[in-house]
């Protein structure tokens, strides 16, 4: 398994560097803008006051939400979304292609002629996905650590949560795409479905916050599970959400494993 994992990781390195540069670069850019906007916050509050409460709530700026004049609040509103949406997209692409690409490119025929079990292929690839996402978030964590140390008092729990809560979200997207890729072997189709989930669930998250009528939808979107408001105000991820997230990831991977070990490889 180790031989395959090393080779797999090497092949994924270029895209990992690219996506990490995009996500951490955007985060750094947003953080660099903070001093410029900080002075304009009093005016911005007046500006925001004209928006309906539900709209502000959707972006975490409602009552009991984030304070954008605070550095953590600023990141929670402006930077965190990028990490989640772009990082989530990378997770969906990586999770969706790592298995299906082998079948799409027909290299699976080579791999399965070598002394390696399907279980090892599946788990090896899942571990590579987790390692890559962990590395991406660690680079973001370093950027955040530098920024938080420069601009404000470093709150370690909030920093860690902002750095690694997206990992949980990304793992959900990656595991869902991974599961889909067991059934759909065309990489492009898997990736577009995975990206559809990333965007679709974000829309669900927005809708759940717009009106009380749809509030129940928040349980169906992982963006809510790692909500910036809870991270900044309560310094935590709600245990129920943590449990749902872990269960989703585990169920997706176990289901993928269950079907993959009995699957006919006809590519």
């Amino acid at each position, binding site marked *: 398994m180790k031989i395959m994992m090393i080779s797999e990781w090497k092949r994924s390195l270029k895209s990992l560097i690219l996506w990490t540069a995009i996500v951490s670069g955007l985060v750094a850019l947003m953080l660099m803008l903070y001093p410029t906007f900080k002075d304009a916050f009093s005016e911005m509050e007046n500006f925001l006051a004209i928006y309906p409460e539900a709209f502000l709530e959707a972006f975490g700026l409602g009552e009991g939400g984030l304070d954008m004049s605070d550095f953590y609040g600023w990141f929670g509103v402006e930077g965190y979304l990028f990490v989640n949406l772009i990082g989530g997209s990378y997770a969906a692409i990586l999770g969706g292609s790592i298995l299906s690409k082998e079948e799409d*490119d027909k290299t*699976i*025929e080579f791999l399965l*002629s*070598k*002394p*390696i079990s399907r279980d090892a292929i599946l788990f090896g690839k899942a571990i590579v996905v987790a390692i890559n996402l962990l590395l991406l978030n660690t680079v973001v964590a370093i950027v955040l650590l530098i920024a938080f140390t420069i601009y404000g008092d470093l709150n370690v729990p909030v920093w860690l949560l902002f750095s690694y809560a997206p990992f949980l979200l990304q793992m959900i997207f990656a595991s869902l795409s991974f599961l889909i890729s067991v059934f759909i072997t065309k990489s492009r189709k898997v990736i577009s479905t995975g990206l559809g989930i990333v965007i679709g669930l974000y829309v669900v998250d927005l809708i759940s916050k717009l009106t009380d009528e749809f509030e129940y939808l928040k349980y169906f979107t992982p963006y809510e599970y790692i909500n910036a408001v809870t991270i900044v105000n309560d310094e935590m991820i709600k245990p129920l959400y943590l449990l749902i997230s872990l269960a989703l990831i585990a169920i997706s991977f176990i289901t993928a494993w269950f079907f993959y070990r009995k699957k*006919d490889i006809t590519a």
Partner: protein
Amino acid sequence: MIKLEHLTKYYKKHARGIIDVSLEIKKGEIFGFIGPNGAGKSTTVRTLLNLIFPSSGTATIEKLDCVHDTIAIRKIVGYIPSEVSFYGDMYVHDFIRYACRFHGNVNQRYLDSLVGKLELDTSRKIEDLSFGNKKKVAIVAALATHPKILILDEPTSGLDPLMQTVFFQLLEFEKKKGTTIFFSSHNLSEVQRICDRVGIIKEGKLIKVETIDDIMKTRAKTVRIKTQDVIEPTAEMINFERINGYVSFVYTGEMTPLVHLISTLHLDDVTITEPSLEEIFMHYYEREEVK
């Protein structure tokens, strides 16, 4: 040793895979598995490698079950696929090293000799290689691990005649070492050239298993007659054709009626020869259809 017992595979989408295929390939034997595209050759190969699961029946390699002992089987099997698909962004030398690493230590000198014999440029990227050169990579990667069993699916496609000869020499060397070789092909002349026995598969069913010598000793004869007289084809005349005044067919019946027929004709020319394997193959195929 490779043993298939009542091996059957039905596909969900495509109705036919293979039906009740039973055969036994002895240690050190080169077994040709022939049939046209879609006959079930690749399905059989894929079942042996556990890429697909059999619907019923069993397949064993060295008494190891193809479904339950996959890793043990893959340790002793070298596989050359019909369509070579490797990681395009890898360099050939990196890929061969990667492929061999799964099998532990590989004799570098032997590996180098294979690369030399096949004139393979290992410094290039796989995606830049022609189909034939990709095939060479597959051959090197399969043979370098000293497999006890070789499973070859159309292994010569893409190779030029010179390289085909080198490849057959390598197979003969493998045979001398005691390697059992399952040689799936639709190219009958190469099967005739290298194989000890041959199995003919048609529409998923194994219709004949014979030694090459026995199959060539078949009573069928290729007859070529130049005559102005009209010859009416009979059931014993396979592949009946009239071209440029010549009538040709493979005759599968008793000799006396054939000789009698020829004696009644006004002949310009006549030849009666042993049929090629292609003609025999067609003979089996058409006979099965008549059944």
